[in-house]
């Protein structure tokens, strides 16, 4: 009987552990993700006012003493009416999509090469991929400013070599932003691809070859479809932060490259228009989440069929 009681005590302890293990991440998400999100959502449906905080409260009391909830959607309408925002959203999406494709084009062969190399080389190569994370991201972007500037390393080298007479304008162009984003986010493409390709059964490639597929055909019919999960994961990890990127377009694009992160910053800081800034953030979130949900939906549909 004593053992039974002991067993029950252990079961109880296990149950409370289970609860704790599940509770902590949920609490974390609730406090650090959902709470700020709802705050932003709340501000996005408020009106600007000259006060502290600079927006109207969600719940207020009117002259008669009744409680009213004020939801204002003017901010969203404003985003639609002013072409600046639409253009900026489109430009952000264009830059992040292109950067994602570039990362994929560069990262895919790299990930494949790492997987196919010997274990010792593989570890060194992986270390090299992760190495840049050991320095501050900001510092690395500043380094690119030094490289790309009119009087920067690259231009000086080209002039010294006699390839060009006058410096090529690279810094503060869209080109520089692309360089910055692709450089910064490439590891986020390579690592999920590597993780996915590592699981790829090499005998499948041999089987394809055995059945008459040339290397290019094997790649298109076996390797590529088998690595789709890695491609999707890597692309999302690049696409989502790249769309909202602020530091890179600000430092490397100057005022010449419009991206939504910069607009958001301006609304918030320069204009102190918190409601519009919040609306910009909410729309950005929808822009990123909706395609993902659609993809998830298609995936689960495919899996169940």
């Amino acid at each position: 009987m004593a053992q039974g009681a002991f067993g029950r005590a252990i079961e109880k302890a296990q149950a409370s552990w289970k609860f704790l293990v599940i509770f902590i991440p949920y609490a974390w998400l609730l406090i650090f993700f959902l709470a700020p999100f709802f705050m932003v959502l709340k501000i996005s449906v408020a009106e600007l006012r000259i006060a502290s905080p600079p927006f109207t409260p969600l719940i207020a009391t009117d002259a008669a003493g009744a409680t009213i909830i004020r939801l204002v959607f003017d901010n969203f309408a404003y985003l639609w009416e002013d072409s600046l925002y639409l253009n900026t959203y489109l430009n952000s999406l264009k830059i992040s999509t292109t950067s994602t494709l570039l990362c994929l084009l560069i990262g895919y062969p790299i990930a494949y090469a790492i997987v196919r190399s010997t274990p010792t080389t593989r570890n060194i190569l992986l270390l090299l991929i992760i190495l840049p994370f050991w320095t501050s991201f900001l510092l690395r972007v500043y380094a690119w400013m030094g490289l790309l500037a009119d009087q920067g390393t690259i231009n000086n080298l080209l002039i010294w070599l006699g390839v060009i007479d006058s410096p090529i304008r690279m810094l503060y162009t869209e080109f520089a932003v692309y360089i910055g984003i692709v450089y910064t986010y490439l590891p986020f493409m390579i690592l999920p691809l590597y993780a996915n390709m590592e699981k790829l059964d090499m005998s499948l490639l041999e089987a394809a070859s055995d059945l008459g597929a040339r290397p290019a055909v094997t790649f298109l019919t076996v390797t590529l479809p088998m690595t789709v999960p890695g491609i999707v994961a890597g692309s999302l990890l690049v696409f989502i932060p790249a769309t909202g990127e602020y530091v890179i377009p600000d430092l490397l694009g100057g005022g010449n490259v419009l991206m939504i992160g910069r607009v958001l910053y301006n609304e918030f800081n320069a204009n102190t228009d918190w409601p519009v800034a919040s609306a910009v953030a909410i729309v950005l979130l929808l822009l990123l989440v909706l395609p993902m949900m659609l993809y998830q939906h298609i995936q689960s549909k495919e899996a169940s069929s």
Partner: protein
Amino acid sequence: MAAAASHSIHDRPWLDPAQKPFIQIQGVSKQFGPFVAVDNVDLDIYRGELFSLLGGSGCGKTTLLRMIAGFETPTSGRIVIDGEDMSSVPPYDRPVNMMFQSYALFPHMTVEQNVAYGLKRDGVAKAEIQSRVNDMLGMVELTQFRKRKPHQLSGGQRQRVALARSLVKNPKVLLLDEPLGALDKRLREQTQYELMNIQDRLGVTFVVVTHDQEEAMTLSTRIAVMDQGYFQQIGTPTEIYEYPVTRFVANFIGSANMFEGRVASQEDEIAEVTVDTLPVPIRAEHAAPLAAGTRAWVAVRPEKVQLSREPFSQAGINMLEGQVEEIGYYGESSTYRIRINEDVRLEVTHPNLRRPRDGRHLAEWEDKVYVGWEPGAAVVLTS
């Protein structure tokens, strides 16, 4: 050797000098760094054979198979298939298909798409692909599973998809890497006969890699026993089992009682071998002349040894006296370990022809027994 005359030369093309070998492996070696996986082997395989490469892990059998498929390049030597040197032919252009040990089915394709894959690569017309895939799925009885993905199939079904996929292109040679390895015992037996049937019907030359001697024995027209990168013996299952040429083969295929000694004399194709640990010399059939004093091993299979509680009366029989030390009861047969003396134990397998009488089997623990075998039941090995 006693080549069975009941078989025609048609069944045994390797005995017909006019026959041209279909696969010729000529002086093939393969090294991985300092490790020699395959060591200068020669082998001829004939059209329509079901040839097995048998050996333990690391003996080089899989490497040899992969060289025939084209996944590995021989370090030296060459492989000729149907008269064509394969040295510079990549795997995708070889008239060879392989059934992988892991089956290597494409997980993102349905059964049908898996089977059609090879035909599509060859640019076969759509209608023909459809009909050939249908035929093949019908043959392996998977027609109703055509739309399933590999992960929705059982092990046996996957194995049949792999077989269908590798046969649908009508390859000249089908390579099978441990084809039955992943199946449970019942399925193995069933699949084994299916494989033999298919091979018989299609006339495709099969080269099978296996570590399972039973599988090799029942499937094959001929077996090559491999060890440490070279062939110990090449022959029919009967030859390999009844006339092993080395100690390795005698021990690897089935089990054998082995006595080490020296040849004392040889008369009328019967050698007399003196064994230090035995009181009497052993007589064993051996046609080839042996010089007196040659170091030799006499091997005799457990089921060829007779067991009795009375001494044997036949003339010329090898007879030893001993005591039952261990009994393994398998139902249809029992294996007895007989202690001859301090140094020698003999294994005897005896079919249980009768039910035990008064609870007693043929022999019981500690019984005093006689074991005996005809000179023709043993072989003399010199290596």
